[in-house]
């Protein structure tokens, strides 16, 4: 069977990771093809190669049997390939019509022909069955309609191949249904559709075929998805059973360590209280926007609290800014490693010492390079950070090693409470269980650990207890003995929403 879109032995490497190694598969016309895999499996890299953002190190990309070389996104667009990303590539300040024809506005010698623009835009939107006024500003539309505009934009470009990257992550269930209807009609028109998502229900609802990637390698392509069970897909994606990854072992817990009472502030809809005992690992689970990150950022002083108390071993603390928390022994590993964690252009050594140097800098002002080296190499060794030298810029390290650098930064502070916000997001599979080992090591030493995560298996895998958050409040707390997916999910879902609605 000839495939319209064919990947042939595609390989791509980045400093620190081999993102794709020799991936080959094809997608047929009039078919919706799911691309499955964990974070770091190589899905986004493959999409970026398809859209011309990256160039493959090796291998070929064929459209209708013809090899393509996409120098940039424009050449990909011209060849009829459109990728619709999670973060939509639209300009909110411009009108819907202008967005639809961004880059090829109908014009006469450079003068925009507004009437034609409006007519053609309205036409495109009608074809999708959307009733959107092309004159309104894009920014005024709800997110679901913006996505429709993005799809219409791809169609306006005569795209033959359309790839969706986690398209439903911010859609309501009604918007999701609309989207699926549109995708099905695109399939009927003979388009070639690639669909990336984590959500199994969606995959089965809309896809005909599927390809599983793991660690940058092609694991399997299923031409007929209906013949494959969910368990089979998950097993292919994960590679191993869940228990091996987490290696959880119970610990003896000490007296209450961190006691948060009636804490309030932005992102919380009601005052929140919780306790972490010495040596305890408390998972925080909830949907995106439930207020988990917001809560621990309040504890850390990253955002101002408007009320409530925080005590450590019974001693009340006054935390107004991060330095206050650090001095008390409470540290935070932020959610977005690149934006909030590392200083990418500075060295590993610099990144490790940025906080802990206050303990060994003469007069707290002068830098002692021997001691900085000693401190950095201690944690680089202890955490087995893979870096060619201490002077290496942190941006050149892989995600997992960057995360370890930040952990090393905090170990130098001898923390009593460590708040992990999405500690394994976007991290190589191998590095994940190393991070878990570090978390257990901290807890063994009596440190109180908080792990915020949207990955339910992760929270269930590492925690002694799970605090579930919903709509900006704490919905409840579940001990390890009572962990059950259904129960935790039910607690996390907003009132009135059924399981199966989009997050």
């Amino acid at each position, binding site marked *: 069977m000839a495939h319209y879109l064919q990947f042939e032995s595609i390989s791509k490497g980045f*400093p*620190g990771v*081999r993102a794709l*190694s020799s991936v080959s598969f094809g997608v047929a016309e009039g078919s919706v093809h799911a691309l499955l895999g*964990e*974070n770091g499996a190589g899905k986004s890299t493959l999409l970026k190669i398809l859209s011309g953002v990256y160039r493959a190190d090796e291998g070929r990309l064929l459209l209708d049997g013809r090899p393509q070389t996409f120098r940039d996104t424009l050449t990909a667009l011209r060849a009829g390939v459109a990728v619709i990303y999670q973060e939509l590539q639209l300009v909110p300040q411009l009108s819907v019509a202008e967005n639809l024809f961004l880059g090829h506005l109908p014009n006469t010698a450079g003068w925009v022909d507004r009437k034609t623009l409006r007519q053609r835009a309205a036409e495109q939107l009608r074809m999708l069955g959307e009733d959107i006024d092309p004159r309104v500003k894009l920014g005024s539309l709800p997110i679901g309609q913006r996505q429709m505009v993005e799809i219409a934009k791809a169609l306006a470009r005569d795209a033959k191949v359309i790839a969706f990257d986690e398209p439903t992550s911010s859609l309501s269930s009604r918007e999701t249904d609309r989207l699926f209807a549109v995708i099905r009609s695109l399939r009927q028109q003979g388009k070639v559709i690639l669909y990336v998502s*984590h*959500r*199994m229900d969606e995959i089965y609802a809309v896809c005909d075929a599927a390809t599983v990637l793991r*660690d940058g*390698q092609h694991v399997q392509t299923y031409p007929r998805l209906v013949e494959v069970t969910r368990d089979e897909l*998950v097993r292919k*994606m994960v*590679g*191993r059973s*869940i228990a*091996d*990854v987490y290696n959880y072992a119970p610990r003896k817990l000490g007296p209450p360590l961190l006691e948060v009472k009636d804490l309030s502030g932005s992102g919380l809809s009601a005052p929140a209280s919780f306790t972490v005992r010495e040596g305890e690992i408390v998972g925080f689970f909830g*949907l995106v926007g439930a207020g988990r990150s917001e809560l621990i950022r309040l504890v*850390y002083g*990253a955002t101002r609290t408007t009320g409530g108390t925080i005590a450590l071993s019974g001693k009340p603390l006054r935390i107004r*800014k*991060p*330095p206050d928390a*650090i001095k008390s022994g409470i540290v935070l590993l*932020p959610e977005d490693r690149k*934006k*909030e*964690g*590392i*200083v*990418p*252009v*500075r060295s590993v050594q*610099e990144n490790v010492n*940025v*906080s802990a*140097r206050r303990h060994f800098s003469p007069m*707290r*002002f*002068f*830098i002692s390079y021997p001691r900085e080296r000693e401190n950095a190499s201690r944690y680089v060794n202890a955490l087995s950070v*893979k870096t*060619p030298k201490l002077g290496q810029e942190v941006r*050149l390290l*892989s995600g997992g*090693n960057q995360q370890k650098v930040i952990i090393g930064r905090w170990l130098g502070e001898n923390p009593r409470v460590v708040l992990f916000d999405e500690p394994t997001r976007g991290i190589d*599979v*191998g*590095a*994940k*269980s190393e991070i878990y080992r570090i978390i257990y090591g901290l807890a063994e030493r009596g440190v109180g650990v908080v792990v915020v995560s*949207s*990955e*339910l*298996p*992760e929270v269930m895998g590492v925690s002694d207890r799970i605090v579930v958050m919903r709509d900006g409040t704490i919905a409840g707390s579940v001990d390890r003995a009572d962990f059950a997916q259904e129960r935790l999910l039910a607690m996390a879902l907003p009132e009135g929403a059924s*399981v*199966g609605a989009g*997050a």
Partner: protein
Amino acid sequence: MTTIQTPSQPAAPATLSYATPPPAPPAPALLRALWDNAGMLVVFALMFAAAAIFVDHFFTWVNLRGLLLSVTTIGMVACTMLFCLAAGDFDLSVGSVLAMAGIVGAVVSNATESAAVGIFAGVASGAVVGFVNGFVIAQLGINALITTLATMQIARGLAYTFAPGAVSVGIKDADFHLLGRYSVLGITSPIWLLIFAFIIFGILLRYTTFGRNTLAIGGNSEAARLAGIRVRRTKIIIFTLQGAMAAFAGVVLAARLTSGQPNNGMGLELQVISACVLGGVSLTGGVGTMLGVVVGVLIMGMVENVMRLMNVPTFYQYIASGTILLAAVLIDRARTRHSV
């Protein structure tokens, strides 16, 4: 279904290969290291050697001293501009602050008949402008371009306002003049002051928490804040220092000219930023060294000096400085790119 991620496997798979630099033959590796760490220094050395060989009168004590004197203003201001740029900001008000401080120094010293009070008042006036810059940028969150564009005009206006009749103000106190021409070991005070400034701010950047925090803030200010660095306070200090230093350079310049002149330092901000960029300081923050700035300042001074010696008309000098700046940025880009 809600977003549920499937877990991952434990052991490091064999397919993961971590970046280890490929072993390079020793000689090229050495050259590469030299190029990476001191690219502009090499360029400067080559240019200097070429000028010494081919340009008459260049390699003479008198000329080199003149060259150094000609870069004292740019050099001093570049010391603190390095901190601004390293923190991811910049300051356009330095030229105006320099003029204003010269006038304030002259007016106050004439009024009080004290050189010291005049000098102090000049520097303090600049520190005030710098503090305002820092406060507005760090505390109120207005961007540096707008803020310092505004204070650039305000300070220029104040310079004219403080100068009676909006013309230059002669400095009567002879002690004040000494600040600009006191000579030790055959070298005049502005050059000594420049050397001290290079050393002090060089140490401040490399060997103090203040300097390292500055680079961290420029590299990623949110990460710096969450790592416990007091970002706002540090930025306010940086801008205050910048204002004080620009003012000090202005007072020294006024002493050299024996008068404060309200139109001094026009376009200085761009020359200073150019010198820093020539020296490898990143405009996006987080990267910069004092050695680089010294080299950048010297390259700028040398180009101007050589062209003057060769009787090239001034307007060609503008073209040359612009071209060199562009070339330096391109070289820097080529240099940093291969390591990504």
